[in-house]
């Protein structure tokens, strides 16, 4: 009873959600707090509208897909072989850079929070190798692993956030008024950016079984849960550290967790949460490697695309070692480069390809 390599919508969702959580620790809460200060915890609510718009565009685009097709194939159909390949190549190169950056940030996070004076090569290398192992096999193996790991990660996170409640201070969360609205709306941008990472699932929809389509209601429900989690993270971090201090701290979430108490004794469990995020990074990197392999295989016309995962991982390692030699470079890339490109992909490239496909009546 050998099965085809397929995955369920729920598994795909779990896989991408872990990726979003992986990136969340870099963006939350510093980016929203920089715009909205104390009211940053309202940013996810403000991001609901643009995220919903992006999701509707994406779902509309994917509605036109045939069996075995993902966003890559749709792009080829919409734009034609040459232009489609060019767009796919651009996205693949972007993902290569992004995965190298993610590797670097993951290693840096370990070095600046637990393993001081350690080496980037070790942590990035092991993380990349592990992600490549997960991605080079069947996609359903990676997705099943994510599906099992996802509730564990969310449970641990929820317990830790709940344990941080006694450290909350109302004066750090208030006041919030209509005067904070402009800041909150600006703070919605990084959250929208973050939620948009979920859209990379579109590249893997070709692995959904025939006849299984992701229902909009299910997607929105999952996004709502995601926003609830972002809100909780923002609320707890701002409420325990204050907006002013978050601007000074490099990893505010881990600093918040550092002061969590269990039964009167400070647990100092931030190390556990830091390495939990390493696992999320592994899943996210595995997904990115796999998507790059799919795109590269699509461009080159290869059938067994998972063979490209290891070369992709090696290329990402090279990007990692060349990117951002210092913590400050990484911050600059995170603040300026990544958000711009990501938002452009979400609100310019994707709708553009969709529109062209509709106009050319290819969808």
């Amino acid at each position: 009873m050998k099965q085809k390599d397929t995955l369920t919508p729920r598994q795909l969702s779990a896989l991408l959600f872990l990726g979003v959580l992986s990136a969340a620790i870099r963006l939350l809460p510093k980016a929203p707090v920089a715009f909205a200060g104390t009211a940053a915890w309202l940013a996810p609510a403000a991001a609901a509208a643009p995220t919903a718009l992006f999701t509707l565009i994406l779902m509309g685009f994917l509605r036109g897909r045939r069996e075995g097709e993902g966003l890559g194939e749709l792009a080829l159909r919409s734009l034609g072989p040459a232009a489609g390949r060019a767009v796919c190549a651009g996205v693949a190169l972007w993902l290569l850079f992004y995965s190298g950056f993610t590797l670097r940030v993951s290693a840096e996070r370990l070095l600046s929070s637990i393993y001081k004076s350690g080496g980037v090569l070790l942590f990035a290398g092991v993380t990349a190798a592990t992600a490549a192992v997960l991605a080079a096999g069947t996609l359903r193996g990676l997705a099943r692993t994510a599906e099992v790991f996802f509730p564990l990660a969310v449970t641990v996170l929820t317990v830790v956030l709940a344990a941080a409640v006694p450290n909350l201070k109302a004066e750090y969360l208030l006041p919030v008024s209509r005067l904070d609205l402009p800041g909150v709306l600006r703070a919605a941008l990084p959250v929208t950016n973050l939620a948009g990472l979920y859209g990379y699932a579109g590249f893997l929809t070709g692995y959904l079984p025939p006849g299984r389509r992701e229902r909009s209601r299910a997607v929105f429900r999952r996004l709502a849960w995601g926003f609830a989690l972002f809100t909780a993270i923002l609320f707890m971090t701002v409420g325990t550290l204050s907006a002013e201090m978050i601007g000074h701290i490099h990893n505010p979430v881990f600093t918040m967790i550092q002061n969590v108490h269990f039964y009167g004794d400070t647990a100092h469990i931030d190390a556990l949460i830091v390495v939990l995020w390493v696992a999320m990074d592994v899943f996210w990197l595995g997904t990115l490697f796999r998507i790059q392999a799919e795109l590269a295989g699509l461009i080159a016309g290869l059938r067994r695309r998972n063979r490209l995962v290891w070369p992709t991982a090696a290329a990402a390692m090279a990007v990692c070692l060349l990117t951002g030699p210092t913590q400050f470079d990484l911050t600059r890339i995170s603040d300026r480069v990544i958000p711009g490109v990501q938002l452009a992909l979400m609100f310019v490239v994707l709708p553009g390809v969709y529109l062209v496909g509709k106009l050319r009546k290819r969808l």
Partner: protein
Amino acid sequence: MRGRRYAAACLAAVLLPGLCSGCAGNTVYTQLRDVESLELVRTVGVDREEQVTVTVVTGLSAGGDAPITLQEQGATLAEAMHMLEQSASRRRPFYSHTEYLVLGQSAAEAGILGYLDYFGRMLEMRTDTGVYLVRDGDAAPVLHSVCGGKDGGDRILAFLKEDLPRTGQGYVATCLETAVSLERYGCALVMAIRLRPGEEPDAVQVRPAGFGVLENGRLTAFLSDAESRGVCVLQNRVREMALVTDDGQGGKISLQLGPVRTAIVPVFANGALVRLDAQIRSTANITEMASRRSAEDPAVRARIASQVEEQLTKWAQAAVDCAQRMGLDFLALGGAAARKAPVRFAAVQAAWPEVFPKLDVAVTAQVEVIRSYDMDAPLSGGPMRRNAETGEA
């Protein structure tokens, strides 16, 4: 073939640390330290004259060995800490369980922002480490004589931290709270302690000595006992407090106050902030009555309440006057007013440092005596006599 590749990848992932032991000069093994090689530092003291002096004390060991005190000097705190690590011969100082940071007066007057910055960057030390300030002295003697004593000084500081909210004399802020206050209001309060001679020869005791006021990170003044109590009242830091009043006939009544809650209400007129109302509320329980009058008499309770209200108002007013005199909102009244009326307060927020010293702050208190526990009437010392005319006892 697939299985072999997979096994090789797993093996590589696990063995990579060893293979990378020489790469880039740093490895994970810089973090490797066996637990018995650690010296748990419980209290850190910082003094400053020409150089920065760091004194660290371990707590009592599990086997009851006396605490160990280490001291080093350096041009900066970072240099002194580094020297400390190098000079520790037996074990490596470990700061993850440090509970208190004690700053000498001289170090505080020179500015504490650098120290907070250092400890904030330090991976080991937590941001919820309590901060103490030594009034009229240095941190080193406190650590040597009190914390390094055979009873384990970190217990004394821990006891103080637990006890202060019960007496209403103060509270111990953490490094994080201090830093937030400095960032937000430009000033902060740090609990001060003072060394006093003890009962036995060569013994010293630590006593609370009010709050030290930091302005832009530097110590500029100390608050008196009354002002410090007023700070605690206004900042809702009093969990319980013992007070003594009288019954107007020479009898003494002891009270246990419940949590003291203060609401700061901004009063606006024509869009402008005209006044802040500080409304203090609390409850009182009678713990001892050496009086012939009974607490069942409303007049007695009213008198008790008015005395407590007067005392609380006096303390709060003293704290407000001091803050306005210094021009520093270390009471965070502006923040409290902003929470109450954020939109209207926003108009005055930018000019708050100028507005605050001249603003009218009206302090009122309301206390209610709610119980006298298991004694309804106090002992009279004799048969009760009734007034023949009125029938009163």
